[in-house]
């Protein structure tokens, strides 16, 4: 195909050719390629531009840590920026574009930033843009914002679907390399429920790139056989293309599966990504190790690559990363690559080994230069040579590719997600996971071990240990003899390379150099957390997977301490970026949140209700009629009709709790601040619940429907809160009381029938006598309906101030009873009314809701001080209620508010100022808690909490809406605007 694709080898399917494009140019690759391997195969080394200096960048890795080759994939709503070319599987028709360049990747004007690099060092954000101050918002911030970021997200809607899913297992194995496969096999054979996740499309990890054999089988074939065996086990699930991104409480792991990111046109019958929550009794991290870059001049030039990546492209994808290669290594991994390169026919010019005393028995053709360093990589947009420093002398060697290996950092991120800090190990020359993790173990390279044989054994042993803890019988098993493996054991780290002249990058993505790290120390930002923020090292999308440990090493060197003393920054989820789509799953659009519907929802809809979401409930807001052009017209009509005739309102959303037991009366007596102990059977009572601090918690009516059975209503908003509160009281505060609770909110369809003709209407369907004598105000009883066809609960209570009832019937009967009431009330002018009219009616009567019960008021503030029992020995809130601050005379108190000119208006939330006072917060006297237009008063009216309000009735004030700049002269008054004697209520 191209000169960089080897004639044979690799795991790609050479019979399946795929077309793709990069920056509009058409290329071909094979099935099994990554975008990165296909680009390399086609000789496309330049893959992106760096963030700050717009330096040309090539492909550095073959996996998740890739900092350079970030591209935008797809088009339209499927546009996905910042995709790592190393993780993107190639598919036919893939469209990729480079980022952060203009006008083109090859010629990028932004690269002029490099000329300004002396001024753009660490902390330049904090040293510049300081003056003149007024330019910050106008010039600097827009400029910085424009320069920020890499790829651009699309504004088009994502056409695909996402899914969230749960899984449970005895053992979760993260990583399907040698260690993970061995562990999964051992656990699977023992019968444990196993989930094995791996971020790549093919399990095998490093085995897929290795030329060693296991029991005489090539390493990739061994991996394939292991996966085939796992596939036969019904107790084992292997999830590929799945990245475990976080470890959370209760041993729950988050993982994202890229279900359809490897095809051009995803199927609508499957999600493109699936987010897994995996609940594991135990987990084993077999995540391997990340090779550490070396920090030398020009180490970012296209053509410089991690040695393990070069080996992956060679052995897994059949792609040579250059024609004449150099290897710069601190350990034996460089020799494994050099051996494989030469075996594949690639010329290796030199192996530059930092160890003067290396005793590796190299038998290849390449020249080995011990005790030497690559001080600089030479070239422009592609590597042309390297300068080798040895004992103060330099030598230039012509190469077009350089592999580097600075040792290995165990991938321990997940092990540190729950607060544990990595621990530096001099023996391993690396940070290891914190010890004694509960429910999580590490094995293989993730635990600092090296070599296929050791990792296989370690995987089996770790699994056996875990299985033993879980009670499974598992025997350690040997998985075969390993041959041809070059084991790269730990070697002393090399943080600083001598003889460097060019920019030596530590963080490739954020363009942080070794000089920047030094500058941070010089300027007092040597603490690892400060250095991170000052230099931005590790703050890019790769989160410093390649750079953090080198930065720590350089900080340690600059400060003359051990890396152990420097420590690491905090590890947090996510290990790699997770899309918002995956996090959202199906919970968007229609399924964004549940809809809770009243049993009368269909009835209300048939009467043309406009619904409003209150919490999750859909409440009837108003019922427009033909000819009404505004909601106010409808609401005014509905409110007038209740006062003149009769209205029907769905109040099923009120919280309803049934309390059973011999001690419920005593229980309620302690829960409410007013007396309930002697509430007779067949009676309802309005109650106020206080919090322990004396503030009002909730209100509602409670009816005694049997000697040991009560029916409580709560506000809609606090139904669950009151239930929780009562459960706490019953279970924790007074377990000696015989009280049982059951939420019956959904059991009953409850209808308010309100208005002077309500009794006439109700009597048509209620079999019992409900005359004023037989069923007086606050009566509450079970009644027979429709000649005994049905039984319901009838309460003579009123939120409107009118003669009114609330009728509760089993929810399934709600609609038919609603219909029956409408039919029965037709001759009396019955109309449905919604929550807006309900609000008007209650404000006219000065009744409170949670607009007034705002968490800072006590009963006296709302004119309900007389309800507080002084006779009861105790109730919740009693003692704190007598605090000095809660009895102060200047507390806000409930008042009514009306405009002096009825043609003017004001809004809820507006503040109250004394007449003539300046509009300042210092002069604030209180605020309007509720307001509406009252068709009966003929103007806007409101309720307000105003300092000393009860004694200021009649005072002229100014209603101030600071947000809208509105001022409305008004007057404070009694909060009851209508029928203050309550005559209509008792009709």
């Amino acid at each position, binding site marked *: 195909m191209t000169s960089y694709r080897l004639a044979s080898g690799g795991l790609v399917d050479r019979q399946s050719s795929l077309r793709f494009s990069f920056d509009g140019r058409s290329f071909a690759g094979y099935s099994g390629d990554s975008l990165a391997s296909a680009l390399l195969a086609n000789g496309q080394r330049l893959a992106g531009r760096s963030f700050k200096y717009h330096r040309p960048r090539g492909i550095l890795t073959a996996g998740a840590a890739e900092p350079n080759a970030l591209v935008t994939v797809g088009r339209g709503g499927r546009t996905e920026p910042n995709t790592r070319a190393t993780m993107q599987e190639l598919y036919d028709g893939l469209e990729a574009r480079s980022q952060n360049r203009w006008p083109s990747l090859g010629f990028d004007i932004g690269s002029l930033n490099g000329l300004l690099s002396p001024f753009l060092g660490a902390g330049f954000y904090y040293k510049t843009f300081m003056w003149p101050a007024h330019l910050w918002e106008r010039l600097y911030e827009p400029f910085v914002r424009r320069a920020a970021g890499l790829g651009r997200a699309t504004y088009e809607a994502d056409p695909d679907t996402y899914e969230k899913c749960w899984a*449970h297992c005895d053992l979760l194995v993260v990583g399907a390399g040698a260690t993970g496969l061995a562990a999964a096999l051992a656990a699977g054979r023992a019968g444990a429920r196993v989930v094995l996740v791996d971020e790549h499309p093919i399990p095998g990890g490093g085995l897929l790139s290795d030329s060693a054999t296991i029991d005489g089988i090539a390493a990739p074939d061994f991996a394939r056989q292991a996966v085939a065996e796992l596939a036969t086990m019904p107790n084992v699930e292997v999830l590929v293309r799945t990245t475990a991104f976080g470890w959370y409480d209760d041993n729950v792991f988050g993982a994202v599966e890229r279900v359809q990111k490897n095809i051009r046109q995803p199927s609508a019958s499957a999600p493109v990504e699936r987010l897994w929550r995996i609940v594991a009794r135990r987990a084993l991290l077999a995540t391997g190790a990340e090779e550490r870059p070396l920090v030398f001049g020009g180490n970012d030039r296209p053509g410089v690559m991690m040695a393990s990546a070069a080996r992956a492209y060679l052995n897994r994808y059949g792609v040579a990363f250059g024609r004449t290669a150099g290897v710069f290594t601190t350990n034996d991994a460089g020799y494994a690559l050099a051996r494989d390169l030469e075996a594949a026919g690639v010329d290796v010019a030199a192996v530059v080994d930092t160890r003067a005393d290396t005793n590796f028995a190299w038998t290849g053709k390449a020249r080995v230069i011990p005790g030497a360093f690559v001080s600089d990589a030479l070239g422009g947009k592609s590597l042309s040579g390297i300068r080798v420093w040895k004992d103060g002398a330099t030598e230039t060697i012509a190469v077009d590719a350089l592999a580097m290996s600075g040792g290995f950092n165990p991938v321990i991120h997940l092990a540190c997600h729950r607060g544990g800090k990595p621990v530096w190990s001099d023996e391993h020359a690396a940070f290891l996971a914190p010890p004694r993790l509960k429910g999580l173990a590490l094995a293989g390279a993730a635990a600092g071990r090296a070599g296929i044989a050791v990792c296989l054994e370690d995987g089996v042993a770790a699994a056996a240990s875990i299985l033993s803890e879980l009670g499974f019988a598992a025997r350690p098993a040997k998985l075969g003899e390993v041959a041809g493996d070059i084991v790269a054991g730990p070697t002393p780290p090399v943080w600083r390379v001598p003889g460097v002249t060019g920019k030596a990058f530590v963080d490739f993505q954020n363009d942080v150099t070794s000089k920047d790290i030094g500058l941070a120390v010089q300027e007092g930002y040597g603490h690892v957390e400060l250095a991170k923020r000052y230099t931005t090292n590790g703050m890019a999308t790769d989160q410093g997977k390649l750079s953090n440990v080198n930065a720590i090493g350089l900080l340690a060197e600059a400060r003359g301490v051990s890396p152990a003393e420097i420590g690491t920054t905090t590890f947090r989820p996510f290990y790699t970026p997770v899309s918002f789509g995956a996090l959202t799953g199906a919970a968007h659009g229609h*399924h964004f949140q549940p*809809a809770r519907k009243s049993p009368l929802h269909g009835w209300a809809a048939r009467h043309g209700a406009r619904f409003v979401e209150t919490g999750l409930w859909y409440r009837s807001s108003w019922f427009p009629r033909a000819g009404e052009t505004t909601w106010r017209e409808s609401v005014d009509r509905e409110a007038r009709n209740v006062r003149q005739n009769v209205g029907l309102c769905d109040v099923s959303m009120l919280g309803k709790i049934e309390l059973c037991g011999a001690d419920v009366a005593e229980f309620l007596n302690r829960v409410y601040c007013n007396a309930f102990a002697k509430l007779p059977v067949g009676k309802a009572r309005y109650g106020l619940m206080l919090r322990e601090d004396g503030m009002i918690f909730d209100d509602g009516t409670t009816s005694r429907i049997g000697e040991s059975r009560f029916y409580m209503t709560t506000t809609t908003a606090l139904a669950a809160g009151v239930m929780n509160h009562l459960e706490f009281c019953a279970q924790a505060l007074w377990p000696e009381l015989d009280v049982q609770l059951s939420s019956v909110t959904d059991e009953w369809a409850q209808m308010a029938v309100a208005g002077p003709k309500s009794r006439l209407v109700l009597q048509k369907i209620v079999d019992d006598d409900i005359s004023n004598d037989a069923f007086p105000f606050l009566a509450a009883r079970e009644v027979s309906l429709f000649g005994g066809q049905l039984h319901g609960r009838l309460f003579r209570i009123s939120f409107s101030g009118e003669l009114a009832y609330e009728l509760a019937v*089993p929810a*399934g009967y709600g609609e038919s009873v609603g219909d029956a009431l409408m039919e029965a009330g037709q001759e009396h002018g019955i109309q449905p009314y919604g929550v807006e009219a309900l609000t008007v009616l209650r404000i006219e009567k000065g009744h409170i809701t949670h607009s007034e019960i705002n968490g800072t008021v006590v009963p006296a503030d709302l004119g309900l001080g007389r309800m507080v029992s002084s006779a009861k020995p105790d109730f919740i809130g009693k003692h704190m209620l007598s605090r000095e601050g809660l009895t102060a005379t200047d507390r806000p108190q409930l008042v009514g508010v009306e405009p002096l000119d009825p043609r003017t208006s004001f809004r809820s939330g507006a503040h109250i100022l004394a007449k003539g006072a300046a509009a300042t917060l210092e002069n604030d006297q209180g605020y309007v808690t509720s307001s509406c237009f009252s068709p009966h008063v003929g103007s806007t009216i409101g309720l307000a909490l105003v300092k000393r309000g009860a004694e200021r009735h009649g005072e002229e004030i100014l209603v101030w809406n600071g947000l809208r700049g509105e001022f409305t002269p008004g007057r404070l008054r009694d909060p009851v605007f209508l029928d203050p004697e309550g005559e209509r209520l008792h009709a």
Partner: protein
Amino acid sequence: MPDMRASTRPALAGKKPLNGDGVSMRALPEGYVVHLLGGWDAELSPLLNELSAERRSVRRAAPGQWFLVGDEPLSRAEFHALEQRLAPHASCVDQSHGRVRILVSGPRVERALSAFTGADLALAVFPVGTSTTSLFGHIAAHVTRVSDTAFELMLLRGFAESLWEYFAGTWRVDSLPPAWPAKRSGAER
């Protein structure tokens, strides 16, 4: 108004059973659901066993609490008889209209439900007769395994339609991998 007829409307009226690849869902008849509140009365256990022996379905709801469920409505007389039978060891609260039951079944039912709930529904750890309460998406439901391949979900009436639509609109059983780590031949929890 004796000529008026009171009729009941099921919460999931009009929702036709859904059938997918290896999983199906249908609304169960709105018969009866009685919330039994018994606390720690030791004498209640034999009574519950009696009820089970009478082929009434008893579901554990919470410590000291159970749901008694059935497909046929209970008359007032039957309900009062039940109250009398359990008194004074337990109180009965009628939830026949407050709770809606849905049957989800099929050979891939566990896998299908795993997209909605964090409860471990594997047969080995959640055998027939086991109940728990869990969130299904954003909606809480009481789930009972009623056979090797079927679960009963019981939830608040007000959320029934929403949960049904959530299931119907979002599950993609066809896309689920066929295997699932379900067997456990080693130690049980």
